[in-house]
C-alpha cells in the first residue's frame, strides 16, 4: 500500500529469518519469518498482531538490528540497515528504540532509575552529567513519574511504573521510530489503559512513529492506524484499523477477530473456532500456511502459496479472500 507522495519511514522487503538448531537428531531449521513485506509511514502506528510463534517479535528484533535477517532488507529513511557500517548503524540506532514486554526483566535491578534512563545518552555521548540528569528528570515527569525517583531502584516500583521507566529510556534519545513489543500485556487491566493513553499522548507530542506488536486485538485496534496480521512467519493481511473489524478479508483474520471475548454478555459474537494448533515453523505446511485450519480451504490453497494482492485499499494474501 503506497501512500501518494509519501516515502515510507521504514520499508521491510522480503524479510526472512531462519533459526538453525543443531541437535542429536540432526539439524533443524525453524522458519521464523518467510518473506515479510510492509511499510511504515511517518507519524503513524503500525500494529502487528498474531498468535505466539507467528514471528511478530522477530520482526521487531530484526528492525532494531538485534538479530540479522537470513534474507531481505529493512530500509530506514531509504537506507538499508544491513548494509551500513558500524558507525552509520550507531547513528541510526538512536532513531530506532524499543519498549519491551516484561517490565520486570527489561530493567537492570542493580542500576538506579537515573542510570537506566541516562545510559542511552552516555552511549551516544550526548550532553554532560548535569544536562543528562536534567533531561532524565524531565522525561520522568513526562511519563508521569516524579523526578525524585531518579535515585531509586526498579524493585521499588510496580509493573506500570516500571513500564513508564522503560518508556522514558526509549524516548530520551528522541527517536523517530519506536518498536513497542507487547508493552501492556504484562500489566494489570486497570493500568493498561494508563500506558496506552501515555503512548498515544507521547506520539502526538513528539511526532513518533510506532510499530506496535501485540496479541490483544482490541488493544492493537485501539492504538493503530494500520494493522498487519501475521500467521506463521507470513503476513496474512494489512488493513486500516477501522476496516479490520468491519470486514476482515482473510479467513484467519476473521477467525482471530471472532475469538476475542467481548466484555458484553448481551452481544456474544458468532464464534469461528479454529481447529487444531498453529503448525510448527520447523515444518510448515505446503501452499498457504493457513490451509490446515482454514474453513474455506480449496485445492489451490494446498498447492500454491498465495501472493499479497491489493483489494479495495488493503493487502491480502489469500486465494479466496472474503470480500
Amino acid at each position, binding site marked *: 500500500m503506497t501512500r501518494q507522495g509519501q516515502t515510507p519511514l521504514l520499508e521491510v522487503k522480503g524479510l526472512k529469518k531462519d533459526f538453525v538448531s543443531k541437535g542429536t537428531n540432526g539439524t533443524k531449521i525453524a522458519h521464523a519469518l518467510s518473506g515479510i513485506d510492509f511499510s511504515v509511514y511517518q507519524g503513524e502506528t503500525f500494529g502487528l498482531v498474531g*498468535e*505466539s510463534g507467528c514471528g511478530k517479535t522477530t520482526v521487531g528484533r530484526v528492525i532494531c538490528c538485534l538479530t540479522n535477517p537470513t534474507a531481505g532488507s529493512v530500509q530506514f529513511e531509504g537506507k538499508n540497515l544491513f548494509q551500513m557500517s558500524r558507525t552509520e548503524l550507531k547513528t541510526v540506532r538512536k532513531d530506532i528504540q524499543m519498549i519491551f514486554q516484561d517490565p520486570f526483566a527489561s530493567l537492570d535491578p542493580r542500576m538506579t532509575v537515573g542510570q537506566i534512563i541516562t545510559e542511552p545518552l552516555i552511549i551516544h555521548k550526548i550532553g554532560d552529567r548535569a544536562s543528562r540528569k536534567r533531561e532524565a528528570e524531565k522525561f520522568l515527569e513526562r511519563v508521569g513519574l516524579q523526578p525524585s525517583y531518579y535515585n531509586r531502584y526498579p524493585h521499588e516500583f*510496580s509493573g*506500570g*511504573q516500571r513500564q513508564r521507566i522503560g518508556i522514558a529510556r526509549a524516548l530520551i534519545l528522541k527517536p523517530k521510530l519506536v518498536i513497542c513489543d507487547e508493552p501492556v500485556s504484562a500489566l*494489570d*487491566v*486497570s*493500568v*493498561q*489503559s*494508563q500506558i*496506552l*493513553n501515555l503512548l*498515544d499522548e507521547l506520539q502526538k507530542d513528539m511526532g513518533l512513529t510506532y510499530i506496535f506488536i501485540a*496479541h490483544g*486485538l*482490541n*488493544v492493537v*485496534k*485501539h492504538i493503530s492506524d494500520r494493522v498487519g496480521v501475521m500467521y506463521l512467519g507470513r503476513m496474512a493481511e494489512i488493513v486500516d484499523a477501522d476496516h479490520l*473489524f468491519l470486514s476482515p478479508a482473510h479467513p484467519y483474520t476473521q*477467525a*482471530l*477477530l*471472532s*475469538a*476475542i*471475548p*467481548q*466484555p*458484553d*454478555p*448481551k452481544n*456474544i459474537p458468532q*464464534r469461528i*473456532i*479454529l481447529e487444531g*494448533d*498453529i503448525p510448527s515453523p520447523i515444518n510448515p505446511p505446503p501452499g498457504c500456511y493457513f490451509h490446515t485450519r482454514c474453513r474455506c480451504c480449496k485445492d489451490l490453497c494446498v498447492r500454491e502459496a498465495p501472493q499479497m494482492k491489493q483489494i479495495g485499499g488493503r493487502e491480502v494474501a489469500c486465494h479466496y479472500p472474503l470480500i
Partner: protein
Amino acid sequence: MAPLLEVKNLKTYFFSPGKVVPAVDGVTFHVDRGEVLCIVGESGCGKSVTSLSIMRLVPTPPGKFVAGEILFDGEDILKKTEKEMCGIRGNAISMIYQEPMTSLNPVFTIGMQIVEAIRLHQGLNRQEAEQKAIKMLHLVGIADPKSRLREYPHQLSGGMRQRVMIAMGLCCEPKLLIADEPTTALDVTIQAQILDLMRKLKKELGMTILFITHDLGVVAEMAQRVIVMYGGRVVEEAPVDALFAAPRHPYTKGLINCIPKTDDTRETLDVIPGIVPSPSNFPQGCRFHPRCPYAQERCRREEPSVYTIGATKVSCHFPLVSDGAEEG
C-alpha cells in the same frame, strides 16, 4: 437447596517476621449447584489465595486461616484433617491451574498422571483407569488419545496441555471445578477452543465451576454470576447481565470502561488512576478510595458495609445508580 460452596468471612493472612499480609480479608460468597461463578480482579486482589484456601493448598506457615469458614456440601473444609482433604482434593473439588506447562510433571507421561488420580480416588485397577483416561482425553477433544497417553508434557502444545489438565480435573467427576485463569497463558484462538470446551462439558456433566480470571471478556462469556475482588475483599457481587449493564461499584465501572472494545471510537481510554495496592500495605477505610473518583472523607475513614441494590450486592458508601451519578 443449600449452595454447594459457601465461603463465610474468610480471612487468609500471611505472616512473616514483623509483617502481616492480609491477602484475603473477610471474603463472603457462595456458589450454587450447577452455576458458573466468576471471580474477577487484578493481581494482588486475593482471588488466587481464595481458590487455594478452598483447596486447602495455602502453605501454612507462612499462611494462616485467621477467621471464617468454607462450607462445602455443608461441611467446613477448614476443619478437615489433611488426610480427609486428600480424599476431597482432586475428587470432589478439583482445580485447573493457569500454567499448563508448570502444573504437569515433566518426567511422567500424561497417561501416568491421569491414571494416578483415577486410581487414587476411584479404586479402579490399572486397565480400568487407563480406559477411563482414554475416555476423558477423548471427551476434551484430543485426537488419538490412546497414543497420547504415552507422551510427555513437552511433546504437547499449550492448548493440548490445558486440555490434559482439564481431563485430569474432570476424571473423578468433581462436584466443583475451580479454574484459576485457565486460558490466560493461551492464544486467543486456543482460548476460544478451551472456553468452548468448558461450556460444552458444563452442559453435558452439569458441573459447578468457580472461574477465576482478570479478563472481563471471558467473564461476560462464561459467568452466570460474578464477584469482583479488590484489595483482598469482595467489592461487588452481581448476575453477569446486571454487572455489565449497571455496575454499582466505581472500581467495577472503571474496569469495564478502561478496556478498549472492538467497536470503540474513543480517542483516549478511561483510566483508573494510581496503582494496584500491594497486599502488605492496603489503605485504610475503603481500599479503593485512593483511586476512586467519587471518594469522600467518609471513604477514607470507614470501611463500607454491604448494600443490596436489586440483584447486586455492593460494598461502597456511595454506590453508583444506573446513569452513573452517585447516590447519597
